[in-house]
């Protein structure tokens, strides 16, 4: 079943205890959804990041907006309909920095926000005292409407808008810079670990900023994934060592130092 997260955005809840048990932040599912009216026009599955999980209830959610035949069909789903998906998929997912005093900083944009939301909650659930900040661009603010649990969990949220009408004026990197540059009064001198997911230009800017400040950064790469299970070799990114890596099964999360930006 599903609810409207914000105008044009849907939250789809599906019942699958195994996925709810196994899914970790960065995992995704590959959905096939057609109606008799559009069957065959688009044949490939489409990937969606896991947004929230409720292990006790065996439920998971994904966020989507209507874009093509698959999401048009998904928007029509009613409670009780069957969701055709493979998952949870993904080889390397987000790894929370194990140090207890680290400042976890998540930088998201657009549909990169859901897995970061999941990550922030996971870190807080494991360690309620962990210092966690989520920075996101204003255009993605509405994607958080579907879940207001982050502030309650004690996650600091910094929004960035071009005109400064909400939060920090500027881009997400303007919100991120003060947290990286020493001295860092906001984080009490703790080390910083950055996790980013969103449009490629945004992640590139975040990764390069982290590299300049010598801070670890994990990026969840977004490439079109025809199969999602490693057999088509179509979703590759070029790694720093010159080889091509399948983002579906070798990623989608990589240390920023391993990827090249084209």
């Amino acid at each position: 079943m599903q609810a409207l997260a914000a105008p044009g955005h849907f939250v789809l809840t599906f019942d699958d205890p195994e996925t709810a048990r196994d899914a970790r932040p960065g995992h995704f599912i590959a959905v096939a959804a057609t109606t008799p009216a559009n069957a065959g026009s688009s044949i490939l599955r489409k990937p969606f990041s896991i947004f929230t999980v409720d292990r006790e209830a065996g439920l998971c959610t994904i966020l989507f907006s209507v874009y093509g035949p698959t999401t048009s069909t998904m928007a029509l789903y009613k409670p009780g309909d069957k969701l055709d998906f493979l998952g949870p998929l993904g080889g390397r997912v987000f790894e929370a920095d194990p140090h207890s005093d680290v400042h976890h900083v998540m930088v998201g944009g657009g549909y990169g926000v859901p897995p970061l939301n999941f990550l922030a909650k996971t870190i807080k659930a494991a360690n309620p005292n962990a210092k966690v900040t989520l920075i996101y661009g204003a255009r993605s603010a509405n994607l958080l409407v579907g879940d207001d649990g982050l502030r309650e969990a004690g996650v600091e949220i910094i929004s960035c808008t071009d005109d400064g009408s909400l939060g920090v004026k500027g881009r997400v990197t303007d919100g991120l810079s003060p947290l990286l540059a020493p001295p860092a009064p906001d984080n009490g001198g703790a080390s910083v670990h950055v996790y980013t997911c969103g449009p490629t230009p945004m992640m590139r800017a975040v990764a390069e900023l982290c590299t300049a400040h010598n801070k670890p950064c994990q990026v969840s790469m977004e490439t079109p994934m025809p199969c999602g299970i490693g057999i088509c070799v179509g979703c590759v990114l070029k790694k720093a060592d010159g080889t091509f890596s399948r983002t579906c099964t070798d990623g989608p999360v990589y240390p920023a130092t391993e990827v090249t930006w084209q």
Partner: protein
Amino acid sequence: MAVNLAVKIGSMVMRTPVTTGSGTFGFGSETKDLVDLSKLGAVCVKATTRERRLGNPPARMCETASGVLNAIGLQNGGIENYILEKLPYLRQFDVPIIVNVPGENPEDFAYVARRLTETGGADAIELNISCPNVSHGLDYATQPHLTAEIIAAVKAVTHLPIIAKLSPNVTDIRPIAKAAEDAGADAISLINTVIGTAIDARKRTFKLANKTGGLSGPAIKPIALLAVYRVAQTVHIPIIGMGGIMNATDAVEFILAGATAVAAGTVSFVNPLAAIEIADGIADYLTQNGFTDVHDIIGAVQ
């Protein structure tokens, strides 16, 4: 009533007439949690070259209307990597292995075929003389005499069945199929992808880094069916039909057109079990229509 689904491609016996299509099923181990390979008619693995190939830069694939355009560029670890790293997994299953072999010259084809023969690395060799993404339009399968040259070079070094994979990107496929048969090919597989391109109007760029790619999926099925039918009228060796097969009905159509076996290709991206489910569906079709053997409907289109 039990029906016979078993077919022969040269000396290779397939328990069902459905194989995976090269390049659409990896090397078999990727789907180890999903697919029991012994239920396949055969497993046709991704193209394997003499040396390791990194493949083309991204973007490599894009979806088009009822199809997929790809320019992977034959990314693979090379024949020795296949023998050491891929073959042991495949040989755990009682299923024939078809290895797809591309090459840039007759020596490359013969080298890989010889290594596969020496090591028991394949039960049949599919000569990929028709990949549109690496040849710059100079596919061996665009010329009868070049097709024959490659088949003869491989025939000289192996006793394994040789399957010539032909290209649809030709004026008339029939003389090429005939040349393959005359040169000693044991079977013909067709079609490889249809060359095409896709452009992003907003960015004003090609959608694939390679600019051109090979089109697969339901969009090419009518092209493939006609090619199978025409070749079946031309040669006496078995045909493995492929091109946009999404379900058992599609597969039956290829068999009616003259294919002895079929390959599930792009559909495996959507459903990794497709090749198994399509074989079950062919059995159902035969039963429902009063046939006891898949051979009863090969080329039976009126």
